[in-house]
């Protein structure tokens, strides 16, 4: 069946609309890349809206020499790897146990998990707890409180429910216990959901800055995003304090450095983005079907 003239016009406008939308979505990132590559001398005049004004890698040199950014990378890397490993593993073990209907006390455990979705102790008691545990300025404070969450446990639990009981029964006949069943049969069958939940957790840790705000008084323990936050807001504070007449030259250098820092710290996420997108879409859909 052919398209009517109205339908053709709609189709053209629709493609046009999404083309514009894509440009709007990409432009801020483009602007930052161009800003970061610009020569600080020309930046004051603007003119890097579409291409860099002059060309200089000095901002990137400055970023890669910046000790606090390197420290931030280290702290974030350690807490992301640690948090993802601990979080994914414990989400799986907890979910597996409460997925077994025969388990005595299952309803109580499931309710304990569910209730954390409905109610929480709030910011101040959580902060005082970490203080009480002497975890301030440790990796434990950045990793453990967020490692497992109710939502991920329930998503994984519903996946485990889908694994046929017969597999477990057959293994038990051959003398396997629950640990062997879990590690040798269930986990290998759950690679997809483990990857999805693992990525959810990893992105959370990579983007986290607020744990540092609360629990890292020592700059040596600042996560990368916290370092960035400090870098970004310092200039804006400086502008606010000095009114609008801040010395141009130094502010402009800070601008290119700021842009370069943002880009350097986004690279890891962008590198794994295709992978992320695939699993996140899957995860969002599992969650919605479940929910």
């Amino acid at each position, binding site marked *: 069946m052919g398209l009517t003239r109205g339908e053709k016009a709609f189709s053209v406008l629709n493609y046009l609309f999404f083309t514009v939308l894509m440009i709007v979505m990409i432009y801020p990132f483009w602007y930052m890349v161009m800003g970061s590559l610009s020569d600080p001398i020309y930046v004051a005049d603007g003119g890097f809206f579409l291409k860099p004004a002059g060309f200089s890698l000095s901002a990137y040199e400055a970023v890669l020499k910046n000790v606090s950014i390197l420290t931030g990378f280290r702290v974030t890397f350690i807490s992301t790897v640690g948090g993802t490993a601990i979080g994914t593993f414990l989400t799986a073990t907890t979910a597996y146990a409460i997925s*077994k209907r025969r388990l005595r006390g299952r309803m109580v455990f499931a309710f304990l998990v569910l209730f954390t979705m409905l109610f929480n*102790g709030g910011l101040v008691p959580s902060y005082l707890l970490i203080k009480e545990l002497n975890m301030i300025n440790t990796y434990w404070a950045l990793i453990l409180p967020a490692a497992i969450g109710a939502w991920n446990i329930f998503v994984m639990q519903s996946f485990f429910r889908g694994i046929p009981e017969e597999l477990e029964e057959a293994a038990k006949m051959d003398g396997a216990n629950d640990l062997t069943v879990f590690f040798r049969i269930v986990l290998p069958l759950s690679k997809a959901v483990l990857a999805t939940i693992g990525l959810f957790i990893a992105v959370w840790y990579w983007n986290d800055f607020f744990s540092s705000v609360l629990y890292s008084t020592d700059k040596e323990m600042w996560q990368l995003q916290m370092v960035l936050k400090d870098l970004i807001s310092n200039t804006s504070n400086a502008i606010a304090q000095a009114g609008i007449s*801040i010395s141009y030259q130094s502010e402009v250098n800070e601008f290119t450095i700021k842009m370069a820092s943002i880009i350097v710290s986004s690279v890891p996420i962008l590198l794994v983005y295709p992978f992320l997108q695939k699993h996140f879409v899957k995860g969002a859909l599992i969650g919605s079907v479940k929910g």
Partner: protein
Amino acid sequence: MEASRETTAAVHSSSVASGRTLWKDLARDRYLYLLLLPGLFLILLFRYAPMYGIVIAFQDFNIFKGVKGSEWVGFDQFSRLFHSPDFYEILRNTVLISLYKLAASFSIPIILSLLLNELKHVLFKRVTQSIIYLPHFVSWVIFSGIIISFLNPVDGLFNMIASQFGGAKTDYLGSSAYFRSILVLSDIYKEVGWGTIIYLAAISGVNADLYEAARIDGANKGRQMWHVTLPAIRPVIIILVILSLANILEAGFQQVFLLYSPLVYDVGDIIDTYVYRVGIQEANYSYATAAGLFKSFVAMVLIVSVNKLVKMSGQDGLW
């Protein structure tokens, strides 16, 4: 007499039997409990211990005296909170900001996914999706950096353009007139693409015959969307709206925290930022815990009633 003794004996022996099977069950599932234990421990420690910590909302908590040594004051912290003019300001800001965001996040992703669904060129559609999902993965820290540099009163892009056209330079982020709009618009920008996923999945489940039938009846694209697609995805829309109503007190802590300043407290300060500032920075632990408890409590009431509502409407609830 005889009969009652028999019953007692029967009850006794059956409870012994069930005790025996309980131990047998526990022994049989010992490895499952072993798997459960570490996760359960983390939940008890990091989710339930802070719930116990809520008792300080009813105290005049002194960090050196601890929970045991601090003085109990009943509901004094709450009465201080409800009598403070701050409270009405932060409550109003929280609800307004999240209602604006809700209105946007409800309508725009639906329209976008209807339009996305009309893109027949597979590669174009896939590239579009990849690009509009991207901002969802970018942290609010990086995003706030973009916003701050675009809106910079000295040489931000917006002010550069405005001054080209002879406009005055404005400090948008420091202005109460613009602050909430910036929050809502930047939230739309970041999350709108991601918001289409669930609708797109629902739309792809619509039976193609329905469109064919509508076409034969002479319905154009617009009428097909209105009469076929929208009714088909209505359950999804209803669920998502109800669920976001339950989160009405979540106005977006990270975003506000990263963008606000004392200049815009009057329109931008929300419950969460207030609790952080007053509680952690100014160390008014008891008062801020009371404010936090107010929020957690209202949120719980909301989500429980919303779940009831969803179930009454015949859908599957959250639990």
